[in-house]
């Protein structure tokens, strides 16, 4: 007997069985790969934090070992506290913002005076390759943050850190060429997130 593959019953049964098989298969794959994926995500974040501390180009194992050794997470302040090998203490502040096409994020490390910037690492979801994506891909640009001040003066009254075109002074970093929107977004993220989340922390 030949099956009538066009009858309604057959179609409903067929699609139900197909979907069930696929669902079980996907659930199985997702569950079995999840530990490895979580490890990758965690390692990626550890690497980003180390990048912001100017510890770049480490292999996976080195990065994990170094991170375990020097970084601790202060949950109350939402700040990563790092003790470098020479004994200096740095604070790493995680920041989040909105870029041109998608989210952007940053890790900003500051000296123990909570004013001088030690290093910075930026990440993005979907900025334009070669232009906006430079905030992540160009270590030379990130290095420009080194030594900048967050506040305009020692009294820590006004938060002055920003990114602007063709301006290069104590508190301002030159923008990325060809990426005005992304650069402005970075500037806005720094201003807003530092004010909203870390003002008390930085002033004390």
């Amino acid at each position, binding site marked *: 007997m030949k099956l009538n593959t066009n009858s309604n019953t057959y179609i409903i049964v*067929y699609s139900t069985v197909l979907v069930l098989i696929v669902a079980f298969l996907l659930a199985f794959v997702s569950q079995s790969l999840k530990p490895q994926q979580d490890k990758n995500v965690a390692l990626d974040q550890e690497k980003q934090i180390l990048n912001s501390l100017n510890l770049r180009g480490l292999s996976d194992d080195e990065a994990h070992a170094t991170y375990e050794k020097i970084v601790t997470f202060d949950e109350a302040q939402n700040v990563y506290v790092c003790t470098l090998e020479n004994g200096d203490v740095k604070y790493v502040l995680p920041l989040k913002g909105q870029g041109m096409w998608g989210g952007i994020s940053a890790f900003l490390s500051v000296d123990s005076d909570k004013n001088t910037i030690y290093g910075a690492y930026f990440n993005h*979801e979907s900025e334009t390759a070669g232009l906006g994506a430079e905030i992540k891909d160009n270590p030379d640009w990130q290095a420009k943050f080194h030594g900048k001040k967050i506040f305009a003066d020692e009294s820590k009254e006004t938060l002055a850190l920003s990114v602007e075109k063709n301006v290069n002074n104590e508190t301002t970093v030159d923008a990325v060429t060809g990426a005005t929107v992304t650069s402005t977004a970075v500037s806005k993220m720094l201003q807003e997130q530092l004010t909203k989340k870390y003002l008390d922390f930085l002033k004390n």
Partner: protein
Amino acid sequence: MALLSKQNKEAFTNPLNLDHPILVQVLGICSALAVTSQLKPAIVMGLAVTVITAFSNVIISIIRNTIPNRIRIVVQLVVVAALVTIVSQVLKAYVYDVSVQLSVYVGLIITNCILMGRLEAFAMQNKPWPSFLDGVGNGIGYAMILVVVGAFREFFGRGSLLGFQIIDCKDFNNGMMTMPAMALILVGCVIWIHRAYFYKEK
């Protein structure tokens, strides 16, 4: 039927030249433009598409006689979507940095016209083995162009290949090459060369 009869050979070689998915049928251009600014994601994307085309072709070909005609596109989509999800999960687990670079484009393989085209035009009428060859052929054809364009754009845009700096071009940053528009022009040039020297009308 022999494993490599004349017909089977054609199923494999046609998509590399006479029926090339990008050069002749001009399918799958969108992803070809998006992921070719560097060589590494281009290679991974090419591999992913090859694997997915080959296996979805085989699966659809095996169950082709049981698929109800009225919901065949849906069934094809479910199979492709399942494979794409698996591939993207595997990438995330084993080559995390590449999967971050490819971001949405792995998911978008589902809508790659090459895949649906091959399933409708080939796998629905042919046995599993020729379908497998056809899928691999189309995938390699697609990957070929991605690798050529990717290598060209990375070399002339950043002076590097696979991330290794070949020419030091700190002061010479060719942003034009890394923009998607340039990929369109390059694919156009490749099609032009192909038509002029390699393509013979049947």
